[in-house]
């Protein structure tokens, strides 16, 4: 074997052992390697999301119309600010990342009290994030108050832009462009016919339907015409409320809800396990284990995991909610 070449290796060669590769400890290096593997997993999920979204045979959902719940503002003031809550979640998670890195910095100085303080803040941030995610899931699963309608086949919908009186329907159904409750008036009546196949509309308080995705997002089908829509022989529509893994009221493509649950759920479970790990290490810090060891490197290692969780959220936030 190699006995003939052993004299050729230098005395301080790394192969002789006792040297840290990359000048990083074993634990830290392994945490980095684990994070790279986890990054591959999350990247795969997000790339699959992109693939299914851009190859979707029906219209996808518009996240600005779906994620509009904010605690207290929605329940008591009926406000639906789009993406506001998700922005708050991002802020919470980035904030908890900052408190984590401040805790790591305190650990470098062996400042036990400060490490404990920042650990508590980080754990609170993590618990707040998971609670927010649970709120999001609840509202996503329950859906809008009156549900929505899937326009599976709706080939001959006429657009009438000028008339406020849409009871005079010419054709199967009439799609009306309106802002709030006033219909936009134009001089010439242009009668187009569109196919609403693949779109989704949400039932409003007055039983009209507001189209939620696609080219005609924001257009209304008035109450009378919803009935006409449902009874016309050429049309195929379906009332849906809430979201499950197989059908959801936000898009005719079940993958939208599917991927929402999977991606945010997978990330959320990482946040939850991160909170648990943080708590365990916090208790160790409190008991003085790190101080006795002479270094706070364990704090740094779980800090790496926590920052990774934040990093993934930054990407999920961009690709799921913004784009």
């Amino acid at each position: 074997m190699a006995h003939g070449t052993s004299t050729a290796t230098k005395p301080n060669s790394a192969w002789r052992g006792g040297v840290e590769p990359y000048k990083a400890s074993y634990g830290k290096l392994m945490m980095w390697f684990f994070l790279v593997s986890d990054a591959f997993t999350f990247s795969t999920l997000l790339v699959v999301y992109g693939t299914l979204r851009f190859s979707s045979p029906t219209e996808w959902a518009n996240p600005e119309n779906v994620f509009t719940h904010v605690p207290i503002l929605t329940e008591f003031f009926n406000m639906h600010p789009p993406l506001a809550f998700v922005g708050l979640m991002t802020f919470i998670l980035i904030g908890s990342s900052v408190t984590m890195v401040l805790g790591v910095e305190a650990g470098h100085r062996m400042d036990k009290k400060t490490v404990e303080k920042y650990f508590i803040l980080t754990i609170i941030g993590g618990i707040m994030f998971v609670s927010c995610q649970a709120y999001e899931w609840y509202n996503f699963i329950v859906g809008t108050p009156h549900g929505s309608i899937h326009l599976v086949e709706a080939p001959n919908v006429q657009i009438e832009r000028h008339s406020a009186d849409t009871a005079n329907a010419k054709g199967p159904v009439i799609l009306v462009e309106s802002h709030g409750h006033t219909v936009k008036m134009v001089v010439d009546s242009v009668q187009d016919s569109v196919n609403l196949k693949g779109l989704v509309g949400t039932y409003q308080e007055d039983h009209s339907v507001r189209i939620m995705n696609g080219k005609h997002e924001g257009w209304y089908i008035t109450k009378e015409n919803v009935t006409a829509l449902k009874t016309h022989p050429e049309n195929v529509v379906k009332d849906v409320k809430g979201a499950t893994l197989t059908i959801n009221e936000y898009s005719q493509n079940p993958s939208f809800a599917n991927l929402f649950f999977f991606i945010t759920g997978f990330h959320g479970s990482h946040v939850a396990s991160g909170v648990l790990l943080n708590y365990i290490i916090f208790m160790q810090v409190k008991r003085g284990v790190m101080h006795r060891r002479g270094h706070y490197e364990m704090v740094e290692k779980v800090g790496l995991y926590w920052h990774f969780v934040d990093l993934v959220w930054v990407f999920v936030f961009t690709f799921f909610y913004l784009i």
Partner: protein
Amino acid sequence: MSTQEHGAHGGHGHDDGHAHLTGPAQRRRIWMVFWIMFAITAVEFVIAFVMLRGMTRNVLFIGMTLVKAFYIVAEFMHLKHETRNLILTILVPLVFVIWLIIALLVEGTWYGDPWFFGSVAAASEEL
């Protein structure tokens, strides 16, 4: 394993030779990075509501996300202050992610295409 040696080394893998900040200066830097991240996120929100959906908007979002990712990995996770070889070991394998993105977006979006399935009805049944 070699857990006893960790105490002796002190676990400070980055102490040698790298002029990185300590104490109040480091804390200032950490808060600076936080405000940068906050500002970028705020700009992302403004763009989300002001700009029309399209390729420019998406490119901006992805660009800003990559900037945020750089700050998290380099500063919060301290990678910028590790040895060069560790930085490469972590970042170079991400080229596989780039490959996956290109492969799936170029080759994978036939999935709902009626040309491939012969009819749109057949395509939606596949779901």
